[in-house]
C-alpha cells in the first residue's frame, strides 16, 4: 500500500450513505440483546429461492444442443462455451511425436492439482513422471482466496453423519451420496495431513477454534484467521516444491487427447508467451482446472481469480465427459457492494459466523445470518429489490449492511482484527474501518456448484481421466455449503492423484489423437451452430470500457 496515502482516494463512506449508517448504529444494542432472526422453515426457504434466486429465472438458461449432456438446461454463458468451436485446428498439430511424455499429467495449478500431484507421487509415481501445468502461476487460484474455513467433523459432539445430512440438505438432496460420504469421512484425515505438513490452524489452549458455517448443525469450521485458503495453499505448494514435482506455468491445456481406445492420453497445451502448442502424452490425466466465475453469469461480478473460465469443463465435455448440476450457480451472499473499486470481492462468511448480521437501510435485521448460501443470497436480493430496503451507493448499486462492529461487541475488542485480518485490511485500504462502521454487501458470483461427473474414486466417464475440485460436480449438488470447497479439493484432489497413479501403473496410453474434436465439430455443424465462437477462452478480456461495464452493468 502507498506509504504516504495522499491524493485521490475513497474517504470512507459518502454523506449519502451516512444517514443509514446512523440507523444501523441506533439499533445495534437492541439487536445484540435480542439475538439474530430465526432460521427459515423449509417452506420459507423454498419461497424466497423461487422468487428471488438468480438460478430460478428460466430465461437466463437454455438447453445445450450437443454433447453428452445434450438437452440439459444451463446458463447461457456456459452453453455458449459448450457449443463453441475449438481454438486449435486438430489437423495442424503433430501428435505423432509428443513434446513430453509422462505417466501422470495434472491440468491446473491450484489446490486440487497440487494435492493430486503430492498423492500421485506418494502412490509411487516418480516426480519426473508427473507434470503439473498451469494457466497462471502455481497457486494463483480460487483455493488461495478462500477465507472462512474448512469443515471437518472431528469433535466428539459431531459425526460424519451430521456433516452428511448438513451437506445433503444444503444441496437440496441433489448431491451424489457416494461423493458426500467420501467428503465427510475424509475430513479429519485431510486436517491431520495439513497438520503434518505444518499448516497453522487457529487454536486456543491447544484446541481448534471451530465455528458454524451457513447451514451447519455443528461447529466444525476450522480456520487460519481469514486466510484459511492461503495458509493451506502456500503450505501445500511449498511441499510440492520440496518434493520437486515439475510445474509449467503460463501453459494452460486447450484440448484433451484421447487414444484409439478412447482413453485419456494427455493434452495439448499452449504457451501463453510464445503462442506455441505443446503436446504432452500421458497415461493418466487429472483435470483440476477449477470453475467458471470469470464467465460473469447473468452479469454478476465475481470473487474468482483471473483464470476461472471453465476451460477444463469445456475440454472434458468435448472428450465425452458428462457435466452435471450445471444449472445451479453459487452466488455468495456477501460480496463487496462499496467501494466500487473492489465490487464483488469476497466478504467472508466468517464475518457472519463471528456475529455480524445483515441489516437493511433502516437498521433492521431481516434474515437469519447463517442460512445456506443460496437462501441467504436470495433473502438479500429480496430485501434490496422486493422490499426496497436496500442502501444505494453513488454509482447506483444497491446493497445491505453487514453489521461488522457486532463482532467485537460480542467477542471483545480486537477480535475482528485478529480473526479477520484480511477483511480488516481490504476495507482499510479504502479508508473504511469495519470494526467501527458496517460493510455494504450484495451477492456475488462465487462458485460452480456442478461440473464434470465423477465417482468416489474421482474417475470420470473417460478411462484414464480423473477430476477433482471445483471442475467436478456431484459433491455439492445444487448448492455448496461454506467450508466444503477447501475440503472438496483436498478429498477429491487426493483421490484423483491416487487413482491416476494406480491407473498409470497399469495402463500406457496409445498414440494420442484429436479425432473426438473433429467429431464434436461435426456435431456442432449438424446442430446448425455457427462457427462464430471459440473456446476455451483462457483469459477474460477486460480492456477498455469492459473494465467499467464489469463494475456497472451488474445488479441493476
Amino acid at each position: 500500500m502507498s506509504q504516504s496515502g495522499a491524493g485521490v482516494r475513497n474517504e470512507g463512506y459518502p454523506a449519502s450513505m451516512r444517514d443509514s449508517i446512523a440507523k444501523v448504529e441506533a439499533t445495534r444494542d437492541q439487536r445484540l440483546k435480542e439475538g439474530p432472526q430465526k432460521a427459515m422453515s423449509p417452506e420459507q426457504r423454498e419461497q424466497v429461492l423461487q422468487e428471488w434466486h438468480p438460478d430460478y429465472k428460466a430465461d437466463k438458461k437454455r438447453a445445450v444442443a450437443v454433447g453428452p449432456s445434450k438437452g440439459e438446461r444451463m446458463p447461457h454463458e456456459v452453453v455458449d462455451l459448450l457449443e463453441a468451436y475449438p481454438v486449435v485446428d486438430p489437423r495442424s498439430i503433430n501428435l505423432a511425436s509428443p513434446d513430453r511424455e509422462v505417466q501422470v499429467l495434472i491440468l491446473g495449478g491450484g489446490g486440487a492439482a497440487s494435492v493430486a500431484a503430492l498423492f500421485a507421487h506418494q502412490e509411487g509415481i516418480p516426480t519426473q513422471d508427473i507434470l503439473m501445468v498451469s494457466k497462471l502461476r502455481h497457486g494463483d487460484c480460487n483455493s488461495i482466496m478462500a477465507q472462512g474455513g474448512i469443515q471437518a467433523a472431528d469433535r466428539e459432539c459431531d459425526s460424519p453423519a451430521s456433516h452428511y445430512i448438513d451437506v445433503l440438505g444444503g444441496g437440496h438432496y441433489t448431491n451424489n451420496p457416494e461423493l458426500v460420504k467420501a467428503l465427510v469421512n475424509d475430513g479429519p484425515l485431510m486436517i491431520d495431513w495439513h497438520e503434518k505438513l505444518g499448516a497453522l490452524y487457529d487454536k486456543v489452549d491447544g484446541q481448534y477454534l471451530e465455528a458454524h458455517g451457513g447451514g451447519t448443525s455443528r461447529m466444525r469450521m476450522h480456520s487460519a484467521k481469514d486466510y484459511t485458503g492461503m495458509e493451506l495453499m502456500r503450505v501445500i505448494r511449498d511441499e510440492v516444491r520440496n518434493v520437486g514435482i515439475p510445474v509449467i506455468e503460463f501453459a494452460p491445456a486447450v484440448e484433451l487427447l484421447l487414444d484409439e481406445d478412447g482413453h485419456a492420453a494427455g493434452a495439448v497445451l499452449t504457451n501463453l508467451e510464445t503462442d506455441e502448442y505443446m503436446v504432452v502424452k500421458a497415461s493418466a490425466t487429472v483435470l483440476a482446472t477449477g470453475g467458471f466465475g470469470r464467465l460473469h453469469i447473468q452479469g454478476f461480478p465475481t470473487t474468482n481469480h483471473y483464470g476461472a473460465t471453465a476451460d477444463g469443463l469445456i475440454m472434458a465435455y468435448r472428450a465425452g465427459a458428462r457435466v452435471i448440476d450445471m444449472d445451479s450457480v453459487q452466488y455468495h451472499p456477501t460480496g463487496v457492494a462499496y467501494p466500487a473499486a473492489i465490487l464483488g470481492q469476497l466478504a467472508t462468511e466468517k464475518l457472519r459466523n463471528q456475529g455480524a448480521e445483515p441489516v437493511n437501510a433502516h437498521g433492521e435485521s431481516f434474515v437469519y445470518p447463517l442460512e445456506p448460501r443460496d437462501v441467504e443470497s436470495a433473502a438479500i436480493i429480496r430485501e434490496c429489490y422486493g422490499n426496497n430496503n436496500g442502501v444505494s451507493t453513488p454509482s447506483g448499486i444497491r446493497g445491505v449492511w453487514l453489521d461488522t462492529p457486532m463482532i467485537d461487541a460480542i467477542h471483545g475488542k480486537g477480535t475482528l482484527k485478529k480473526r479477520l485480518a484480511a477483511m480488516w485490511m481490504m476495507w482499510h485500504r479504502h479508508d473504511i474501518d469495519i470494526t467501527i462502521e458496517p460493510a455494504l454487501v450484495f451477492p456475488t458470483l462465487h462458485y460452480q456448484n456442478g461440473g464434470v461427473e465423477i465417482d468416489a474414486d474421482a474417475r470420470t466417464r473417460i478411462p484414464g481421466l480423473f477430476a477433482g475440485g471445483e471442475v467436478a460436480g456431484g459433491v455439492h449438488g445444487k448448492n455448496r455449503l461454506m467450508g466444503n470447497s477447501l475440503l472438496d479439493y483436498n478429498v477429491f484432489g487426493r483421490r484423483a492423484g491416487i487413482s491416476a497413479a494406480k491407473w498409470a501403473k497399469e495402463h500406457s496410453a496409445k498414440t494420442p489423437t484429436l479425432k473426438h474434436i473433429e467429431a464434436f465439430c461435426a456435431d456442432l455443424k449438424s446442430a446448425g451452430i455457427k462457427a462464430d465462437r471459440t473456446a476455451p477462452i483462457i483469459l477474460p478480456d477486460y480492456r477498455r470500457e469492459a473494465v467499467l461495464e464489469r463494475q456497472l452493468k451488474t445488479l441493476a
Partner: protein
Amino acid sequence: MSEEKLMQIFIMGKAYNVPAGITIMDAMEYAGYQFVRGAGCRSGFCGACGTVYRKEGDYRLEFALACQEMVEEGMHLTQLPFTPAPRSRYVLDDLDAGENVLLQHYPAIARCVSCNTCTKACPQDIEVMDYVQAALRGDLEKVSELSFDCIQCGLCSMRCPADIKHYHFAQMARRLYAVTQSPEPDHLQTRMSELAEGIHEAELDTLMKMNLEELKQRYAQRVIETEGEAS
C-alpha cells in the same frame, strides 16, 4: 465511482487517460493492456500483481498490489513480472528445530543491515524486518506470528540490499513452528481412529439408504449447536 472524471497516468512512460476511482489493475486494462502475467486472484491474496510506481513530483518509489491500490493522477506505473527467488529444499520431518535452522538454510539472514526497506515494500503492512530479527534469534513463534499475513508477492526480497529471501524462510519457519510447537488436538486422533475402525459407517449407511422424505425429516430434526456448548 466517478467514471466521468478522467485523469492522466503514465504506463511505462506513455500517457493514458483513465477514470478516477479504479484500481491500478483496472486502469491498465482500461488503457488497453490485457494481462497474462501480473494478474492472479485480483483480490489481494495471491501476490501475482506486485507493482511499483512513482507519483508526480515525488522522488520515492512506492510499492503496492495492482489489484488493491487505487490509481492516482500523475502516477507513473510499471508492471513487474513475478521475480523468482531461490528457496532451500528441505524435508520437514528431518529438520532440526534448533535456533540455527533458518540461518543454515538461508544464511543471508545474517546480512540484514536493519534498513527496513523490506517493511516499507510490504503491501500487507507486515513488520518484515522485525521477523528477520526474530529469525536471527531463532524465534520460530515470533517469525510465524509476524509473517502470517504474507501473500508471498516477493516485493520485500526484490528490494532487499542483502538479498534475503524473506517469504521463503518465513514459510519454512511457519511450517516448522506448526509441527514442533502447535500440536494437533487429541480429539482429531480419536476421530481418526474411530474412522479407521469404521464405527461411523453404520450411521452413514442408514442415511444413504433414506428416501427423500426421510432425509427431509431428518434434516428438519437437526438440533443446531449453540455457541458455548461443551464439545
